[in-house]
């Protein structure tokens, strides 16, 4: 599903100097994988995730997504591909404070130009599936961290992406909430969704079938 070849990400430091965040990354993720990317802070885990999620375009090398050469796509084409195939879960949930739960779930669908009736059906299905129908009119501040992350995940998968990217999804949750989220991920993976998560937690990494270790921008173990 994903093939990275000689992928590098660097930032100019000024005075002609460059700092590399990712070096010579070669990575394959097959459909149905549940990959956990681990490594110390600053190793390049989140950067890798944002490149996979096509948020970051400043890299070099080759990136194939389902045989589509992402590195040859224009920004708009990447956005279209991302919207069709990828969902993203954030550590800080990043729910929109001024929108209700229902509206937060509706947002990605509206950006994907779903019709109003399709959106209503999909949101209703998500609310039902995650058992949060009773919370649809609440604002994020009225929910616990775990509940917010649940909405974050529901929002990420509402448009049925093939790939779910999660950046430390339990980083802000206490252990029991974290476990619930990881169980949910396991269930989604079992249903066929490919997942790549960044985590510091060995325990959470254990929910996946594969671990990629990053250090100073290099893959040291995969």
């Amino acid at each position, binding site marked *: 599903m994903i093939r990275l070849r000689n992928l590098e990400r660097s930032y100019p430091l000024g005075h002609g100097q460059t700092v590399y965040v990712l070096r010579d990354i070669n990575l394959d993720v097959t459909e149905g994988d549940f990959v956990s990317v681990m490594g110390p802070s600053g190793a390049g885990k*989140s*950067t890798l995730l*944002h490149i996979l*999620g096509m*948020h*970051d375009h400043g890299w070099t090398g080759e990136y194939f997504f389902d045989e589509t050469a992402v590195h040859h796509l224009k920004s*708009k084409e990447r*956005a279209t591909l*991302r*919207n069709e195939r990828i969902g*993203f879960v*954030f550590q*800080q949930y*990043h*729910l*929109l*404070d*001024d929108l209700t739960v229902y509206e937060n779930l509706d*947002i*990605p669908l509206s*950006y*994907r130009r779903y019709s109003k009736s399709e959106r209503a059906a999909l949101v209703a299905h998500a609310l039902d599936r995650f058992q949060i129908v009773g919370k649809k009119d609440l604002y*994020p*501040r009225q929910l616990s961290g775990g509940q917010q992350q649940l909405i974050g995940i529901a*929002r990420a998968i509402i*448009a049925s992406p093939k790939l779910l990217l999660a950046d430390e999804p339990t980083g802000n949750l206490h252990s029991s909430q974290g476990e619930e989220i990881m169980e949910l991920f396991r269930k989604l993976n079992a249903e066929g969704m490919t997942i790549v998560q960044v985590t510091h937690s060995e325990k959470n990494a254990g929910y996946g079938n594969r671990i990629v270790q990053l250090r100073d921008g290099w893959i040291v173990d995969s």
Partner: protein
Amino acid sequence: MNDLRFAVRQLIKSPGFTLIALITLALGIGLNTAIFSLINDLFLRPLSFKEPDRVVHMYSNANDRNLLELPISAPRYQHYRDGQTIFDGFGAENINAFTLTGLGDPVQLFGGKVTSNYFDVLGVHPIRGRNFLPQEEDTADVAMVTENFWQKRMGGDARVIGRTIILDGVPHTVVGVLPNLPFSWIGPNAEVWTTKPFAIPGFSYERMMRGTGFLRVVGRLKPGMTIAQARAALPSLDQSYRTQSPDKIDSSATMSLKTLPEDVTGNLRPAFATLLAAVAFVLLIACSNVANLLLVRFSGRRREIALRMALGASRASVLQLFIFESLLVSILAGVVGSGLAWQLVPLVPKMAANFLPFDPETGVSLSFPVLGFTIALSILTGMAMGIYPALQSSRADLVDGLKEGGRGTSGSVRQQRFRKILVGAQVALSVTLLAGAALLITSFVRLNRQSIGFRAENLWIGLVTLPQAQYPDLATRQHFVERTLAALHAIPSLQSATVSGDIPLLAGAGSQTLYSRADGEILPVDKRASAVSHDIAPDYFKTWGIPILAGRDIDQHDVSDHQNVVLISQAGAKKVFGNENPIGKTLLVTSGSTPVEIVGVVGDVRSRKVVEPNDMEFYRPWAQENFPFAVVAVRSGLRVDAVTKLVQSALNTVDPGLAIAIPQSMDKIVAQALGQARLMMWLLGIFAGAALLLATVGIYGAVAYTVEQRTGEIGVRMALGAQTMDVLRLIVNQGMRPVIFGLVVGLAAALALGRLIASQLYQTSAHNPVLLVATMSLLGLAALLACVFPARRAALVDPVQALRAE
């Protein structure tokens, strides 16, 4: 002190905010201060008379003929003087021009002939000598001059009292030197006053006593007497005059009173109320701009507020901190605004002198009341802007503030609503102001395009007063005109020349003459209509460029011992004769019902005011009707001063003792007639421009700041799939929503305002749909642009950076 230091540091830390807030507020405060300074000079600074509120100006009104605020006749003045019990003093002035000789070249002076108590009634004490004495009223040749006259024409002679000056060829003894009197009461150029007020030059005593109004009558209310009580006492005097003088032409008139301060400013009040409202709008827009910025700024400091409170700060101390900050901005803006006003205020008399009772030489500068106004305005502004944002922001939830974890940190729902209201209010105020300005500008353009009926370009005008002693009657004044015109015709560089009794578009242009058709039912004199009458010499229509539409011009046969003739205006012909041919018909004119035969119809002329509709106007031959005031008009391509020299030299060959007063181009007089409308248009245009700019900056500032605050949210939206157009649409939609609300409210306000300024509009509907739509479109477009720029910036947000910054 710590709070103040912190506030200063905060402002220095955000130079962009500080600069925008300072410029915005300084503009609002500066413009308000400049206009207030004008209002202070005109309305609030008392006239330099003793207790001016107790001095009233009495007017005569023929309500049934809609002739209002006319001067008072001599018999009526005498009747009221003898019968009244409401005034301590009751005096009159017969405004007059004099020819001064014997002090250098002959010069024309303005002033008046007054009752002996006139200056006592006004409460003016001479700085040298004394006021007139009762025994001097009817017979003595005495004069009082202003300090300016004394200094300029007599070199400040210490022995001025008792010196003789020659006025209209008659030696007058100077008995007093008056302080310089307010322009607003005496008008420009008035320098000298004499006694013997009860005479109209060119009128016999009998004709004057028929009831022709010519006196400016003033009374000083008795102590404890209110103006309402004085007004209540008038009807019985009106009635007794009516009973005792039923045959007078003003017998059915009623009297009205105005206090002097009200009298001198009355005509300007609507215009100044409009201007004051306009600058207040500008300040309100500026305030809402800055309040909006403050609100966004304060709400962006939730974490700091929460931290302060966690460390023990009370809500009051947080409130105090924020109010310090907004006060500091407003006071600094007050200082800059005062600087702006300091530059603008001295320009005011120069700009306003053409049409306001202002001495252009007056050294007006920021006075203490004005400075006090500015300081008060600054503090008030600071409080008004700061208090709500401070109250809102100091209500921060401690835990939430410290966590600061959520998205959409553009403030609470209540704050967002308030900010939208502020933007909406700015837009509404701007639409109202822009619509008002657009109406007045359109009105002025129409006024400027209005045909005045004569050709003002290359037309030179000068006034010559003919002394009664040398020119006592029709014949001598006719002889003077014949000789003067002969001398002027001999000058080859002058295309044409004529003489008339008045200057169109100057105050008091043309005398009012009662008239009636001679056929059919003849109305009693006091029920007759009145029209402007011009006494004209040959070549008048040619020189002024007024077309003769029917009949003939006056000629050499139209002299005093022949049939009296008249030419009338086209509008007058239609009004009185409808479809009949007026040529050859007879009218009865003047209070003496003089029959005059209509020999011609001429084009309509706006001789009183450009805005007044065309009406009946009479043109009577100078040889048959004239007064000792001769207006020389010369058409020539030469410059004004060159023509003045030529005319003066021609005049010297006729009578070397005569002088030309106020020589000027007719263009200038026409421009002055439009001066108030022009200045209003400029000022309102400037204010509306400032409002548009401020509102645009305000909308831009609010949207840009919101975008900055919502960078993280926009990043999330983009991470969730939002594309450039989605972000653009989001920001523009949210930015434009309060704008559209403001446009709708502004439209309603503009419709309401239209009614208020309708009286100041000329041939312009106060609800002109094209103007309103254009105004709204202009503001809508400006607002859209103000939203699009920050929206574009938002669309370029790098989601990775935005999310990382969180």
